[in-house]
Structure formats: C-alpha cells, structure tokens
C-alpha cells in the first residue's frame, strides 16, 4: 500500500443525492470516502450473512468470516449456541485464530497467551498477579456480536437496536423456504466453495444476482455447452419469469418458473442430463417418487434471491460478497448439497457447481470480466449516470413489491433504494 491510499477522500455530494429511482451516480463505484461511509452506515447497522449452520456442525466447530471489514469467528459453543466473535485479543489486538475452519475447545492468543472460551469469555491470562486483585476478566471477553439465524443461515450484526432478522427478511423468508427444498427431503449442507476476488466495487456484484438481462449475453458460452434440453431450461425470456422487489433491498428473479417449488410437478419427465443420476438412485433402491424428488432437487431452485447487503441464494449455491476496499470485492460461491443424501446426487451437484462457478467455471470468469469492465469503464465520463431504469415501462405491483419483466432492473432499484435509506441516516 502506498501512502497515496491514506490521503483523505471527500465525497462531494450527500450520498442520498447520488441515487435516483432510475439512475445512480458514478461515485457509488469509485469514491473511497463513500465506501468508508457504507461500512459504517450499512455494514455496521444491518444483518450480515456470516456462515451456514452446517459449516459449524458440532460443539467446538468454528469458521472464520467477516462482518463488513471486520474479521469474525463463527463458533458453536458447548451449549450448541452460535457465537460470532470479533477475531481480536482484548489485550493487544492480535487475531486469536488464523485457521479457516476446524474444531477447538478454546481460542488462545499466540502473543501473550490470553485464553478464551467458545463463547468469547476470557478464561485465563498468564501471570495474572501483575494486574492486581481487581482484574475483571468478565469485562474483557472477546467482542461478541448479536446473532440470529433463519433456515440455518447465520447472520450477525454490530447493531443491538435493529429489528429481528425475521422482520428484516420479511417476504424474502418464503423464498428462502422454497430455496431450501433443494435438500430433496434432507437438510441442506455446505459441500465446499469457490473463492475469488474481483477488482470491483461490492455493489457491482450486489446488482448482478437478480439481473437476468445479462445472462444470455455474458453466459452464451455456458449455455452453448449444455445439451438442447438444458439449453431450453436456461432460455429464460421465453417463459413467465419475473423479478420482484421484496422490500428492505431484497429481490427475487424467477428464471425457471416450473422450478419455483421443487416438491411440485414430481411427475414431469426427468431431463436428459439427470437420467443417469435417476438410474443410479433406482439402482440404489430408492422408490420412484423419492428418485424424482432428489433428482428434481439436484439441479437447484429456479430462481435467484438477493438478500441485501451481502448474500444471494442462486440456483444451487450461496453467493456471499465481502467488500475489501472501494475497488476490491471477495466472493464465495458456496456449493450446497443434501446432508445424508445419496452420494451420487451430491457428486452431481459438485460437478454442476464446477461447470459454472469458480475461477475456472464456464460462467464465473465471464461474470468477473464484465464486473471488472464496469469498474474500469467508470474511470471515463464520471458525470454520466449508471442506468437502472430498464423495465419501468411495464412494471406492475407484485405480491410484495414492484414486479417487472425478468430482464427488468427492478432488483437493482430495490437495492439502491435500501442503500439510499441507510445512507441518509
């Protein structure tokens, strides 16, 4: 890092003036002072997704994560409760854990040996005598965040005063319920993940998951790699899909309407690309209805759900974004499977994940390229607005908010209205 990066930046306009209903301004991707303000006004005052419960399955299981720029440890304690602890020793600030995930009985700072329990409480310090008799260990626990979960998705917040998670998610909850049906009757479990960074502002990724307009263009090479039947499945705009604002910045894009509810239409023909899996399950002794339920679940849900500000539920995976700096964003593509389900189905899900996601997938590198192009392009013509007006012309009231054509920018408008509301605080 050069010293140039620490020069004070000044956002010229009030943040809320940078967002209109149908357009936003270039500083949203570019302004370092605005980024700092976002970390304070948004990421410190909302529910941030930190992990899935299956990543910390047992007492003592932990995984490293982030809330905005802050490193945290998500850990299940002896009572089975989830704690989200800021990864910082209360003595001299060293991180107490640099192992990405694992199982432990306690955390110990490597610098002077302060030891903490799984709930973050300070258990002991070497040679405590020099702190005197009134040394109050209870006041020196690791910083613990407020935690809540929905459908085993764990969220944390630095703000004790915001509404409960369920209230914040609101109408998005029923879509999360539908999404989790891809367990095919088994609990949903994390099977692995792809991680990568892209030199772009975090909001460029935030905009993407319910933007179906880009799919046939950016992902043409992916679509062409599929068989005819699968190609038709991914040919979204011929169907009755839509994108809807769910409030609080959340939005849903329904791309494959026949796959909204994976428990329905079990008698539909099994697609060609799942025929081999279906036979493998029959050979394992599964009944035909169960075979159909698992096979239908294997391909994932037919919609993308974007939860403001940092997690999306997309087809068969979570996409988790982490702002790193104004022009750098880290992304996790978390592959989901069936906990205790047939190995053949989980293998197929992992192969489908590899086919599209990750640094060498047939989809992700093309997404990453266009996201980076956005960041590079905004260096020019900074006075030009970024348009989010697509689909306003025929947007109608939906069940929970404005509903537009599947290619509409309704989801982006939802995100930016929430951004505006939070930044005006």
């Amino acid at each position, binding site marked *: 890092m050069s010293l140039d990066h620490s020069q004070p930046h000044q956002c010229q306009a009030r943040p809320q003036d940078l967002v209109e209903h149908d357009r936003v301004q270039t500083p949203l991707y570019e302004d370092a002072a605005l980024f700092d303000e976002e970390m304070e006004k948004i990421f410190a005052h909302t529910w941030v997704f930190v992990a899935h419960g299956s990543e910390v399955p047992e007492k003592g299981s932990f995984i490293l994560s982030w809330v905005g720029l802050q490193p945290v440890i998500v850990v299940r304690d002896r009572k089975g409760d989830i704690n989200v602890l800021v990864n910082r020793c209360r003595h001299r600030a060293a991180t107490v854990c640099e192992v*990405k995930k694992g199982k432990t009985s306690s955390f110990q700072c490597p610098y002077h040996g302060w030891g903490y329990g799984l709930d973050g409480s300070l258990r002991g310090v070497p040679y405590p005598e020099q702190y005197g008799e009134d040394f109050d260990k209870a006041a020196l626990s690791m910083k613990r965040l407020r935690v809540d979960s929905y459908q085993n998705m764990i969220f944390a917040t630095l703000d004790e005063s915001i509404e409960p998670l369920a209230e914040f998610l609101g109408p998005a909850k029923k879509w999360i319920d539908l999404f989790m049906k891809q367990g095919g009757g088994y609990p949903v479990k994390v*099977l*692995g*993940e*792809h*991680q*990568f*960074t*892209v030199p772009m502002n975090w909001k460029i990724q935030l905009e993407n998951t319910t933007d179906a307009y880009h799919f046939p263009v*950016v992902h*043409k*090479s*992916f679509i*062409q*790699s599929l068989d005819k039947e699968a190609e038709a499945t991914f040919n979204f705009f011929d169907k009755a899909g839509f994108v809807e604002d769910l409030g609080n910045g959340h939005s849903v894009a329904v791309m494959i309407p026949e796959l909204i509810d994976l428990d329905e239409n079990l008698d539909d023909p099994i697609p060609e690309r799942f025929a081999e899996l279906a036979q493998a399950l029959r050979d394992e002794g599964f009944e035909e209805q169960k075979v159909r339920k698992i096979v239908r679940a294997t391909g994932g849900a037919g919609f993308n759900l974007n939860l403001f500000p940092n997690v999306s539920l997309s087809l068969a995976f979570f996409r988790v974004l982490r702002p790193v700096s104004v022009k750098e964003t*880290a992304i996790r593509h978390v*592959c989901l499977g069936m906990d205790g389900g047939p*190995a053949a189905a*989980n*293998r197929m899900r*992992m*192969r489908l*994940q*590899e*086919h599209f996601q*990750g*640094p*060498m997938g*047939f989809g*992700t*590198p*093309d997404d*990453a*390229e*266009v996201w*980076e192009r956005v960041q*590079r392009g905004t260096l020019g013509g900074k006075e030009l607005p970024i348009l989010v007006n697509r689909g306003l012309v025929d947007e109608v009231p939906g069940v929970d908010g404005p509903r537009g054509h599947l290619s509409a920018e309704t989801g982006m408008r939802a995100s930016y209205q929430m951004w505006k509301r939070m930044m005006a605080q």
Partner: protein
Amino acid sequence: MSGIKTMERPSDLNSIGLQELTAFVWREADILDRCDYDAWLALWTDDGHYIVPIGPGENYEDQVNVCYDDAKMRKMRIERFQQGFSISSAPPADTVRTVSRFVLDRVDGDEIVLRCAEHVVENKFGRQRLYAANLTYTLVRTDGGLKIRDKVARLLNSEGELTAFSYLF
C-alpha cells in the same frame, strides 16, 4: 522424499528417461502458452481427468474442485475457449509458464507418475499476475507415444481467494 526414492532407483530413471519426460511436459507447456488447444486435447488418453483441486486429499470426486474435467468436459472447455463467445477467454490472458523441479515419483508398468513445479505469469489489461502450482502427471506409454491419463494442478492458495482464469495450468 520421493526425490530420494528416485535416487535409490537409478535403473528406473534410466529406463524411463527423465529427459524424455521433461521434454514432454515442456512441449505441453509450450502448447498451452500458444493456446494450441487441439494439440493439447490430443495429448490425453480418454479415461483420465484434468483436476485443479481446492482442498487436501485425493478423493477429488467427492469434493468441490476448481476444475474436475473428464474427456467430455475437457472437450467442452476447449470448445468454449475456441468459440469466441466467452468474454473472459476471447481474447485470453497471455501466459508464460515455466515448469521445473521434476521428480519421478513412481513407475508401475506402463504408468509413470511425475511431479514438478509450475509458475505461470499471466498478462491481461496490462496487469501481470503470478501463479504457482505443484503438478502431478500420470503418464502412460501408448502406441502413439506418451499420453496424459491424469493431471492434477494444485495451486498455491487453492483454498483461499483466487482470481478468474482464462487458461489452463
């Protein structure tokens, strides 16, 4: 460890010829740097896998990998590179790769397991990135000369945050 093992078995080394193996791997590196992907596909037997793993362990089938390509997926991946529709691959990043530190791991009949180190420098958007990988080849002697059955490219920081790649390791 395997280096020492190799030293203890000079006859194997001589019978295979490390020079022949390195020449083969260097030719592959040249093919990849030139993006001559049809020539690359021709280096393979049909039954093998090209794998870029994420986690430790060798049960690649039951874990999420960066890439786990059987013959069909290899062919599809190359078609994607060649069709020109993929914005990340057309044009691809320019690469220069160096392969070195060859160790003959074991020889079992016609099957040869070779380990080596690879550095890839990529250039795109006037920006250069450097990746390092440990490569493990399972090569077989066929009537058509040496072929690759399996190739495992284990990247440094494979379990951490990578960037998107428009080339092969």
